[in-house]
């Protein structure tokens, strides 16, 4: 039954979308910074994973953690040196700076790796449940994406750093008064965002051909997911991602592939105008 296949397609795609957006959502929600670097960071994670696989035969799942840590470190450095000075600036400034940084990263990757699409040819096979077919690598990506988001959620709620981040997100000044070191929290958040982007990149390298040409697309998806699901919260990114995946899958089936992406954007615009905090966002927080 094709309906079930569409549903499954949408969910597996949606989990990937959630994973790619959660880091972006965190940075936007907590630091109030629209991180234009996000798409390129994901691609960087993907390239590094592919490189490790090609030259040292490292399995992408094994590469996931090291790549994430590397990007975490990179994110920390970028935050401390640059973003930190701009956190209170209006969106025009922060968006433009991250755009400039993105140009640098994008160019660097093009020179180092060039834009040829790279794919990790794992060929894990498929799983058939009745008439519905699922690719194993998508299943793995789905599970991992969920695991990462749930892990993040746990970290946010249970660890001190996590709770500090949430506190800063809710009310920066009150958090500062309570003794939380804001700069530390900011650095942590941005680094987390970058690390998650790296992890997502590793996952995507298993599933998509990786090329710098799609970094802008990934960023665009992140925008849409954040608006749909709500900013700054992990469940928001998860819901937003799954919803977007389902919408694209359904629209692609009903209205043809040329309209699938358009409908996703259309929904985003409608939500922006009517309920900008998204499906799960909290009211009053911009």
């Amino acid at each position, binding site marked *: 039954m094709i309906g079930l296949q569409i549903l499954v397609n949408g969910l597996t795609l949606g989990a990937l979308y959630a994973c790619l957006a959660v880091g972006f959502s965190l940075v*936007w929600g907590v630091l*109030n910074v*629209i991180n234009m670097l996000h798409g390129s960071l994901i691609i960087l994670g993907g390239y590094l994973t592919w490189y490790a696989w090609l030259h040292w035969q490292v399995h992408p799942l094994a590469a996931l953690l090291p790549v994430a840590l590397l990007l975490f470190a990179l994110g920390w450095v970028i935050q401390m040196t*640059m973003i930190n*000075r*701009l956190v*209170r*600036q*209006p*969106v*025009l*400034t922060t*968006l*433009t*700076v991250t*755009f*400039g*940084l*993105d*140009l*640098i990263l*994008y*160019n*660097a990757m*093009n*020179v180092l790796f060039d834009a040829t699409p790279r794919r990790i040819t794992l060929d894990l096979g498929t799983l058939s449940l009745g008439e519905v077919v699922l690719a194993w690598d998508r299943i793995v990506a789905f599970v991992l994406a969920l695991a990462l988001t749930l892990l993040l959620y746990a970290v946010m709620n249970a660890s001190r750093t996590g709770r500090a981040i949430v506190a800063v997100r809710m009310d920066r000044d009150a958090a500062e008064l309570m003794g939380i070191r804001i700069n530390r929290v900011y650095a942590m958040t941005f680094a987390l965002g970058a690390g998650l982007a790296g992890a997502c990149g590793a996952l995507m390298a298993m599933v998509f051909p990786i090329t710098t040409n799609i970094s*802008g697309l990934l960023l*665009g998806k992140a*925008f*849409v997911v954040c*608006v749909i699901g709500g900013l700054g919260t992990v469940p928001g990114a998860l819901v937003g991602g799954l919803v977007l995946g389902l919408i694209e899958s359904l629209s692609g089936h009903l209205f043809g592939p*040329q*309209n699938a*992406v*358009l409908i996703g*954007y*259309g929904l*985003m*615009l409608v939500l*922006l*105008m009517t309920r*900008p905090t998204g499906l799960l966002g909290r009211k009053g927080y*911009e």
Partner: protein
Amino acid sequence: MKRSMAIFAVFALAVAAVPLAGDNYLLQQATFVAMYCALALSWNLIGGYAGYPSFATAAFVGLGAYAGALLQNAGLPMVAAWVGATLITAAFAALLGYGLLRMKGHYFAVGSISIVEVLRLVASSWAGLTGGGEGLNVPIMPGGPEFAGRVFLYAMWAVMLLAFASAVWVDRSRLGFGLRCIEQNEDAADMVGVPVTRYKTAAFTLSALFCGTVGAISASWVSYIAPTDAFSILLTLKVPVMVLLGGPGSLLGPVIGAASFVLIEQTVWSRFLDYNQAALGLVIVLLIFFLPGGVLGRLRWRAKPAVQPGAAPAAGSAP
């Protein structure tokens, strides 16, 4: 005010005199300068004066390009097509503004940038009208390259003049005053009696108007348009940078910024073959960190002394 106008007049005369230098390439560069000045001046109305960071510039330029191309192909003479495209773009912006301007800060930014992508997707899928991915041909203007070069230079130059004139008008009028109030604190402005919605929509429409004209002229110039290049995210991100470079919220800021940016770009990409994008990115980053008020901010000279160029953190309401 008078100083700004005088300086601009000198600049405009310099640009208009370029054909006398006889070099077609120089002519083309001057045309680009005029074009970006027009775009930057337009953006300044919504981004600088009103404080709403719009990233929809490319949407209007692209819309103008398609409207102009379609009108020209339908038989309208070139200039009439340009005018028609301008009107269509303005109408679209006015309607769009109604929904878009309800959002503030980040949401407005994200909403405006998505319009670019949405229009690109529409142009791509509405193949019956727009030719889809194939693009649209526009007939080449007869008369040879030197003549065409001049026509397009003066066309962009005229748009630049009109954009400057509208900026002057806005700056002097109640609209301009109202916009500045909105930029400082929208709720307070509303309470004081400034017709916030009307003014914002007016500024947004005005900012879109000349983008449409630029788009239509570009389409005639290149003789071919296609969705991906017509709705260029890079363009939409470059224009605010130009205004930031020059100094937002002032009359000359966008002009200085646009001219300087084109100059920098020319010297950068011809020198750093493989790294030109990174060089541009570096310029942008350095600009934000070391020239926060733009060139004019640095020179400590503003058109209206009381106005802080957009980025002051004290303007609390803009997140």
